[in-house]
């Protein structure tokens, strides 16, 4: 087993453990903090895959913005920091079964794909993902239209947020 595989297994365990804690802890702020741990683990996975840009974006956007937003939302909406209700409802057995079946199905489906247990070819030396991404984003042959549409999407999100928040007053 290579060092990268050990690191992958470690971070996968952290991500899954944190994810289980997100749904099982009764304290809402703790749930948000466990979510941060899970998201950080995903950033580590990106770093292991040599996806430099995605690593930092994962931390900047998910931990720096979305997690903060979650914590603000919890503090704004809940008087009780603790969830008093039961953690499990009657359907948990069926839900676990469906979850297992979905996992098994996906496993079967993906195992026929040749990338499933193959090794990816090494990146050429001097490959700079950010430069490639930038060139693709501005090239008319590639993603310039999605790039502009993304800004319209963000505009719509901003207007929606301001509108929804504004009607409460």
């Amino acid at each position, binding site marked *: 087993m290579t060092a990268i595989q050990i690191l992958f297994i470690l971070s996968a365990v952290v991500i899954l453990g944190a994810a289980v804690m997100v749904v099982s802890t009764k304290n809402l702020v703790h749930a948000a903090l466990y979510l941060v741990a899970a998201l950080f683990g995903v950033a580590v996975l990106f770093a292991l895959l040599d996806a430099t840009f995605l690593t930092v974006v994962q931390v900047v956007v998910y931990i720096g913005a979305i997690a903060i937003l979650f*914590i603000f939302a919890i503090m704004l909406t809940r008087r009780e920091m603790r969830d008093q209700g039961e953690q499990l409802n009657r359907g948990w057995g069926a839900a676990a079964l469906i979850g297992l079946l979905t996992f098994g199905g996906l496993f079967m489906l993906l195992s026929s794909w040749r990338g499933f247990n193959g090794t990816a070819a090494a990146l050429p030396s001097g490959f700079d993902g950010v430069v490639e991404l930038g060139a693709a984003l501005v090239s008319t042959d590639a993603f310039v239209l999605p790039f502009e549409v993304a800004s319209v999407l963000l505009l719509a999100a901003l207007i929606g947020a301001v509108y929804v928040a504004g009607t409460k007053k």
Partner: protein
Amino acid sequence: MTFWSDPINFVAQWLRDVFTGWGWSSGLANAIILLLGALVLVSFAMLLDIFLVWIERKVVARFQDRLGPNRVGPFGIFQPFADIVKLILKEDITPVGADKLVYNLAPILSLTSVLLLWAILPLAATIYGADLNVALLYLVAAGALGTLSIIMAGWSSNNKYALLGAFRMVASMVSYEIPMVVALLIPTIITGSMSVREITLAQGDGGVWFFIVAPLATVIFLISAIAELGRSPFDLNEAESEIVAGFHIEYTGMKFGLFYAGELLHAFTFGGFLAILFFGGYRFFGLENLHPLVGAIIFLVKALIGYWVIMWVKYTVPRIRIDHMLGFNWKFLTPLSLVVLMVTAVLNQALAGSETWVYALVMFLANVVVGWLTLEILRAYSRSQRKAEEPVVESVAQAAHH
């Protein structure tokens, strides 16, 4: 490569030979060398931090017409060591109802988020840690961890003042992150790279320091860095006259010390980034070519000057109100930074391939024009505000007269 011309890499190479000589694999040897490098750099940063406590206390004393620490050692230079002994021997009090785990994690994360910045600082041409191709976003990402540590501290202390301080701090930090990131985009455009090493290299050997090419971006970065640090005039997080100490109100002893150390080192590190991004980093008119350590000293002196400017602002300007602070960011700094960004981007493309001095001159003039227009708009706005308020003032004066 000899010891004298490049000591750090010479030692690293020597260690690599020793380790592989012991029969270790090259990967393991490399990892151990990187670990040792990280240890040395973190220890250096912490030692510097101790020294910064002394500088900060001396400088604030001078600003306030006092002498500052002057009893322990010459000029009180050993005062911070006495402080550390005191902090270690203090009782660690955890308030009732505090969330123990989060409460203890917050100061650790606070200092770690600052130390992480040191991993990418290029101290000299051959002395640098990680040469990331996304270093500027990494800087923002480390700031995100710092924000998280503050919200953790404020929430877990089980104290209303702490929570208020944390919320104010987070609101200001996240707001001012936008102009800061936009200011970071401008050196990226000029250099064509996010790596801090590339940005430093672009400012020497035929390039100019970027504060000439982008003076407005320099100012915007400085202002938003001060807000990001939570230092006066943006220190609403610990406004001692209303919420005592803000998010770290309940912390005592060494845990308070960690927040304090983190704050000082953060300010110094941002002075360093100001030097790297806009003032040539370790470069000083070819002097850095003498020896890598000379480059490191030049860098540290520049960072210290940046830190001094941040202190100067801190001890001169009074605290501003939260509505003014957010208004200043969203209604002034963010639009201005985006306008500067658009002008820089278009001009950078239009001037591609031209001489360096033409490029620098046109960029500088464009910044002057944008700055002048901004001032004119502000002047017109304040004139209209005064006009709107004048009748009110007069009627109040008359009422007082009667």
